[in-house]
């Protein structure tokens, strides 16, 4: 079956309204949606010479059948400091304490100081020889799996608006996030689990809260579902105490009977049918969600690898391990957040980075290693990024201010090129100058790795077909070098 994804906005009042139709039903069915691109592409590449057929999608480069099926995004709220982690800049030491020789766009203009060197040592790692900071000893151990991008840029230095840019493509609130688009395009492979799961820090919400996983004007079934820690990871997941298993089965049987009597009066009404089916899905979720989140079956070796034996890494490690378990079970998009915005190092930059890396470095590396060991890395994209970077000069005594002109991120798996470093910033690490990748380019490339065309994955909104990247305005383009 082929469904044309690029349909006109509802021009005819009698045309079937796709939003009304798909918006209704459980996530399982939204997959039908709009996987046409995927179907087409996969179909075509199967039909053509294996691995060489040009794609129908209009993508700039020909690729074999897309490998990536799911995404784990380790989101780092606040703007991690690239020159202290991923992007060594000897010039900072040379000019340390001296005025910056040039002009900078600063956020807190009254507090801008002189050039601030990184107190951390950098050295090459792995056979790729990628140079990383001493703060990342574990990531250094898997560096040959990573695609490191040192030339990221974005269009805002405000946290909220920059978060919306990287998640939704625009500074305005209310648009669908990358995860929603992926779920809209690909649906789920396990209808007993949400397709888009958010694993937040138990301490609280990240900056901009639920907007970080909102489905905006895409169907509600595309929004992220936060799993909480504790015994009710999903709201109202637990059967109330005192309701026995038998009693619940009795309830569901009776409800089903009532609903089918009702359905007899409205035969073939899809929404009523979907609602009846959803009670079965809900009941299945009551078992499948706790099962997915139960780490009892994980070996001691695995637990240690993620740092579950160490109080410093236990919390983040647990969530990284859960992320693996979820993609293993067919969840399409998993996103980890930190509460508030810990990477926002306006003061005590070095100290804060040290403690954050101590918490997150080992579990993040373990996730990559574990996915590789289980043969899941080829079909899973791991993305580690914040919303922007930081400045080469000090803010106040020992902080760094926001920087939209340059930052670093890494990807692993899912067809991204392992052991590869892309682009560069200027000699101070301020501005991306070589092979600049915008947040829109990143979005386009991620969708492409999943077999989705960022110009065609569209939804009628405000009278036009809107997309994640809005390429005509943002000039979003694929970055083929990032991919195998």
């Amino acid at each position, binding site marked *: 079956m082929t469904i044309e994804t690029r349909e006109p906005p*509802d021009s005819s009042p009698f045309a079937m309204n796709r939003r009304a139709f798909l918006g209704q039903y459980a996530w399982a069915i939204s997959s039908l949606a709009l996987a046409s691109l995927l179907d087409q592409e996969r179909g075509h590449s199967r039909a053509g010479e294996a691995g060489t057929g040009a794609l129908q999608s209009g993508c700039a480069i020909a690729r074999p059948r897309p490998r990536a099926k799911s995404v784990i995004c380790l989101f780092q709220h606040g703007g991690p400091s690239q020159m202290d982690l991923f992007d060594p800049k000897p010039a900072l030491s040379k000019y340390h304490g001296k005025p910056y020789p040039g002009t900078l766009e600063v956020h*807190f203009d009254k507090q801008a100081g002189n050039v601030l060197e990184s107190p951390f040592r950098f050295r090459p790692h792995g056979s790729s020889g990628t140079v990383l900071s001493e703060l990342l000893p574990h990531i250094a151990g898997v560096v040959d799996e990573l695609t490191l991008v040192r030339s990221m840029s974005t269009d805002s230095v405000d946290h909220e608006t920059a978060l919306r840019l990287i998640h939704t493509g625009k500074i305005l609130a209310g648009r669908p996030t990358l995860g929603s688009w992926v779920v809209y395009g690909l649906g789920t492979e396990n209808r007993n689990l949400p397709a888009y799961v958010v694993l937040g820090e138990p301490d609280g919400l990240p900056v901009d809260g639920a907007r970080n996983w909102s489905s905006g004007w895409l169907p509600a079934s595309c929004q992220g579902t936060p799993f909480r820690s504790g015994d009710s990871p999903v709201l109202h997941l637990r059967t109330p105490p005192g309701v026995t298993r038998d009693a619940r089965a009795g309830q569901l049987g009776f409800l089903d009977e*009532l609903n089918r009597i009702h359905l007899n009066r409205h035969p073939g009404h899809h929404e009523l*049918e979907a609602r009846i089916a959803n009670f079965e899905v809900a009941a299945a979720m009551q078992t499948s969600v706790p099962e997915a989140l139960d780490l009892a079956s994980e070996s001691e070796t695995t637990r240690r690898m993620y740092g579950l034996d160490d109080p410093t890494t236990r919390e983040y490690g647990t969530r990284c391990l859960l992320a693996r378990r979820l993609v293993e079970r067919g969840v399409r998009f998993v996103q980890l957040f930190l509460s508030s915005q810990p990477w926002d190092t306006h003061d005590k930059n070095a100290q804060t980075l040290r403690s954050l890396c101590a918490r997150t470095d080992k579990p993040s590396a373990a996730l990559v290693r574990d996915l590789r060991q289980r043969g899941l890395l080829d079909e899973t994209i791991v993305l580690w990024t914040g919303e922007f970077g930081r400045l080469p000069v000090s803010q106040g005594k020992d902080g760094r201010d926001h920087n939209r002109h340059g930052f670093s991120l890494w990807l692993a798996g899912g067809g991204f090129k392992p052991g590869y470093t892309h682009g560069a910033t200027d000699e101070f690490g301020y501005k991306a100058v070589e092979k600049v990748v915008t947040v829109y380019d990143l979005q386009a490339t991620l969708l492409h790795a999943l077999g989705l065309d960022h110009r065609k994955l569209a939804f009628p909104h405000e009278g036009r077909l809107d997309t994640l990247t809005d390429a005509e305005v943002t000039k979003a383009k694929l970055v083929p070098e990032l991919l195998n």
Partner: protein
Amino acid sequence: MITYTKRVVAVVALLLWGAAAQGAWADAAPSFEREIVPILRAHCIKCHGPNKPKAKLNLASPRAMARGGESGPAIVAGRPADSLLWDQVSKGDMPPRPEEPLSAADKESLRRWIERGALGLPDPAQAGPTAATWDHWAFAPPSHPRPPAVRDARNPRGPVDAFIERALEDRGLTLGPAAGRATLIRRLTFDLTGLPPSLAEIRAFAGDPRPDAYRRLVDRLLASPRYGERWGKLWLDASGYADSNGYFSADSDRALSYRYRDYVIRAFNTDRPLDQIVREGLAGDELAGGRRGPGTPPEVIDQLVATHFLRNSQDGTGESDGNPDEVKADKYAVLEGTAQIIGTSLLGLTIQCARCHDHKFEPITQEDYYRLQAILYPAFNIEHWVKPDERMIIAGPAALLLRWEAHDKAIDAELAALRRSFVTGSDAQKKAKEEVLKPVIEKIESRRRPNPGRIAGVVDVSADPPEIPILVRGGYRTPGRKVGPGVPAFLADPDNPYRPEPRTAVPGSSTTGRRAALARWLTKPGSRPATLLARVLANRIWQDHFGTGIVATPENLGYTGASPSHPELLEFLAAELVRSGWSTKALHRMIVTSAAYRQSSAPRALAERIDPDNRLLGRYPLRRLDAESIRDAMLVASAELDDRPGGPYVPTNRTDSGEVAVDPSTPGARRRSVYLQQRRTQVASMLEVFDAPSIVVTCTRRQPSTVPLQSLSLLNSDFVAACAARLVERLGPERDDCGQDDDRIDRAFLLVIGRTATGAERIAAGRFLREQPARYPGSARPESRRRAFIDFCQMLLASNAFLYIE
């Protein structure tokens, strides 16, 4: 379940196949709406659109297409060879950009469409060269269509039905049979008040022998104070109302916005004319002539409160930090949000698209956008910014304000006296004494009360500058040419000029009159903007009665919006709305007394085949209750609804489990949902899961979703279980425990669904109540029976019979 999924997939496939097949049947003549318009939209109207069309050829509207461009007619019906459009397309000259060529199939569709008579275009003679500014139907002057004649004259019906029946007859269909009384009273009561009918009301209506029983029911419901709580909420959503500032994560509180919420509810309950509500929202302060302070009459207070409409936009400027550029951007965001709310909720236009460039698909220029911004600018002056908490007007009854002032001054005096008597001596001594006094002072200070006259309204801050810059590409750092206040050029007519009248009469409250002029222009009787406004509002009212608007995109009636399913009916309703003095209740009455509204929702085979989406309304559309109605109706079923109106919101809070809920011990915890805190980032979970909006800008329609999280809430939430438990107490005493439960079963059905159980339902319920107690093996008999009854009631509350209006 697997079977089920397959079935749904099969159904989807069938539907899609059906759509494709229809295309194939149309081989003879491609559908203008379904095939030709999409091709033109995708490939042509970026240049040949309504906005400064190249070669003066506008391919976005049928009328303009028929007229042609500066080179003459573009299309000669029946003769592709003589049609300039086909000439250009077939030679490959158009579209000019090689990267977006027309496919061979698209070209063939265009050719065939012209060849078969270019159906869908008006006669070029009627397209006329003079009407270019209203080529699109929504921008045209009012047309006052007469209800059409219908073939089936056996049942003379009202004007609404004439339009509906005519469209049905054209497709060989008819209206469905009338719905039964029990169905009707439930439908109408939920629709008009958001609540279910009481048992007494159901019985009274069922047994009312008078011929006008239904009309009396309509009148009673429209007069109910519950009416404004439902229809006011829909207006509030469209106006972008929230109890918080949004924008930043802080999402700080708007403690006084409730006064606007109450104003809207009151205005709907008293059937205040919609044009007046619009005028007061845009310029209540200017209409009030600058009056404020003690002794302000109540109607003027209303006008001032109404201006909160302009403050509904997100406003982060109370929390802004960072460099001046960003603080400036945050201020502009308020102006932009307000412009978008006006565009969406009143004009039905996507004017926000013209912020950075001329609109690509609508006749709105960037200059138009900044002219509108210049109207708002004196109230939201970037250079003389007032943060939201400081944007206050003081007005109220004299006695109230004077009493407060006296109280406040008494506290001042008390503090002053205290200081005078104690704080003497050296600096060190003073400091020591201050320390001692601190708690005493705090105690006195705690007796202060906020000024009861505070109104979170809008007034002009300054008359300068008279002109504001167009922002090049929307950038705050790139101001361009300056423009003064004005209205969109495509809606400007010589007999309806935009003319601000500055007022300086009242000292200290000079105002530019720019917003009052906008309000007058927009609501001038018979004008094109007022007609557009009436179309937008009538369409939304229709939508909220039937689930889908006559135009399915209520936020967009422009070129890119959906086409109306019943264009003449919308014209008629818009004209009636104006004729009735913009009376919402008159329009409700006309709609809900129609046979179209009163017909059964049962599907009929022929209609299902010909019109599966029911856009022609051959049956009443089965509709799920909205979020607020679900919660409120559960509270009614358990006899717990607290129906006190108005006042500050009932606070919600986020529990440890992450649920946003009202603590049951909070005063007002069981009030109607419209009175719960509407914090943007903290919508009550029970409401959010059933699609209540978390307002970003505005919400003019909700998309009902069907997701498993709703099922989990219905099965497992404390709220639903508690409602069920209390509902059991309303069922009357058990007669014995041998299964004679029919009376209690019927009563439960009546209380939850508004009717007695059907035979099949009674059998299912009886069996459930016999079997369920044994599934609680730990409990003694009376307790397990009680539990079974609670389960029974909860499943009724979770059932589709409860969740849907038939």
